């Protein structure tokens, strides 16, 4: 992770606009955003793979490409169909050789809120409506049900990917070139936003990490998590994030080592029925798991 520290590109001369062919390639590659989805970085490896045609065209300097690839492996989670919006903005910043710190902050700040909008539009609105229209056709035995379903949804998905890519790439080019005079101040402001959004992510994505210990007590069972919530809601997610930050930043732990620690915490915890989740602990314990 040494190159994490490189905050500037060696070659700071803005690259020419990437070709239409490259943008198209990135749009199609964006369909594999979640190819190696995982709990640690979520979509990052798929994101980087989708960005690569653009990054390779923009960063002709080998060291800059490595720097860019490294920070594009940061945690990211956004809506898979709306991702091209983030890609276009990040690509324009990469192309204009913005400060790496700024790119990182803008990347996560744009990606995170998009997830919610995308879900609301697609999974909660378009899919149920389309399913309502076509499912009964299928049940009635018509092959047109599935065909229509696929065409409507896939068509909307690809139109969204195309439209957002071009819109955000052009927007990013305009916005980023305006920022050059105040680059340093912009970097600071972007980091403020980035840190603010990560703080929100801890509460928003971390809510699943809870204790499941419930001690039988007649009418009023004692739920340990409720006491923790009285101290601070989402206390465990916050503490665990700070612990990981401490281990990585101060103790020089690698992410893999952190993952290992968490795996042990999770599995050993479940042996004793500490975490929530409705399973049966391996070891008989005097409490139930909620």
């Amino acid at each position, binding site marked *: 992770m040494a190159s994490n520290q490189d905050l500037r590109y060696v070659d700071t001369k803005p690259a020419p606009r990437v070709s239409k062919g490259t943008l198209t390639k990135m749009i199609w590659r964006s369909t594999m955003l979640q190819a190696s989805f995982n*709990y640690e970085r979520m979509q990052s490896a798929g994101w980087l793979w989708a960005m690569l045609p653009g990054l390779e065209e923009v960063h002709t300097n080998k060291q800059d490409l490595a720097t860019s690839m490294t920070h594009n492996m940061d945690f990211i989670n956004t809506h898979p169909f709306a991702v091209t919006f983030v890609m276009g903005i990040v690509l324009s910043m990469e192309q204009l050789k913005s400060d790496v710190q700024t790119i990182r902050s803008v990347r996560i700040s744009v990606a995170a809120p998009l997830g919610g909008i995308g879900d609301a539009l697609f999974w909660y609105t378009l899919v149920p409506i389309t399913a309502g229209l076509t499912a009964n056709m299928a049940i009635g035995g018509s092959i047109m049900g599935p065909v229509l379903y696929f065409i409507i949804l896939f068509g909307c998905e690809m139109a969204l990917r195309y439209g957002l890519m071009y819109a955000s790439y052009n927007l990013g080019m305009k916005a980023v070139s305006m920022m050059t005079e105040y680059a340093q101040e912009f970097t600071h402001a972007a980091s403020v936003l980035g840190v603010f959004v990560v703080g929100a992510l801890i509460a928003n994505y971390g809510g699943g990490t809870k204790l499941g210990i419930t001690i039988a007590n007649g009418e009023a069972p004692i739920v340990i998590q409720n006491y923790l919530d009285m101290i601070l809601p989402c206390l465990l997610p916050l503490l665990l994030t700070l612990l990981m930050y401490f281990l990585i930043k101060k103790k020089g732990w690698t992410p893999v080592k952190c993952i290992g620690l968490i795996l042990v915490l999770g599995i050993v915890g479940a042996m004793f029925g500490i975490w929530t989740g409705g399973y049966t602990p391996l070891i008989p314990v005097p409490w139930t798991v909620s």
Partner: protein
Amino acid sequence: MNIIEIVLLAIVTFIFAIDQFSLTEIAYRPIVACPIIGLILGDVQTGLVIGGTYELMMIGNMPVGGAQPPNAVLGSVVAMIFAVKAKMDINAALGACMIFATFGQYVVTLTFTVMSGLMAKADKAAEEGNPAGITQVNVISCLILGSLFAVIAVIAYVGGIALSPALESLSKNASWFMGGLSAAGGMMRFVGFAILLKIMLANDMWGYLLAGFVCALVIGNIGTISAATLLLVAFIGVAIALNDFRVNGMKKKIEEGGFSDGI
């Protein structure tokens, strides 16, 4: 028992397993997948009926926010096998497939955990500026996910409904392990956050981190607006960032002497 059917079934299951997170993200949905499986098993009509019914069941059970509902791909494949091969009626098949769908969910949890470990390989490839290494990581992940799904589909085809009791007891005995894996899976994102913070979090920014945390907590607990939490929080964040930009921009101007006129 028909070898061609088994091979084709394994292939489409492999593809649907990847499709549920990548590719079209539409083709794996029961309404599309079931008729295709029906085509392989020789009964498209049943595929249409099961697909439509399952699709309606799934409204309100969407794969959002990282939650893993019983897996729709294995649900579809196994419901079709039971309905066409074991001649079960449609509702019985949909009920009996659920234990397999639960295993699909386990496989997904397992793959997402294993792939966290492989991020180190991707980091290394990135550091070396090696695009082929990134491709490799993505291919490995797709292979793991697709193959595990294909294997379970074949097991369901060969073993049929007779397997259910064994699966039920396995699922019960392994429940602590799967519970532990999903608890760990839920916590692994904190490592991803920590890596982000390692670079972004300057000493003057701790307050912003906590403020973002609080905003998400407050908004996330108001039922009517909680679905839009991150967007709403981002709006507040933009206002704070604009203010930060303005203050620091003014400071720069003052330092350059640009503001001294008239004061």
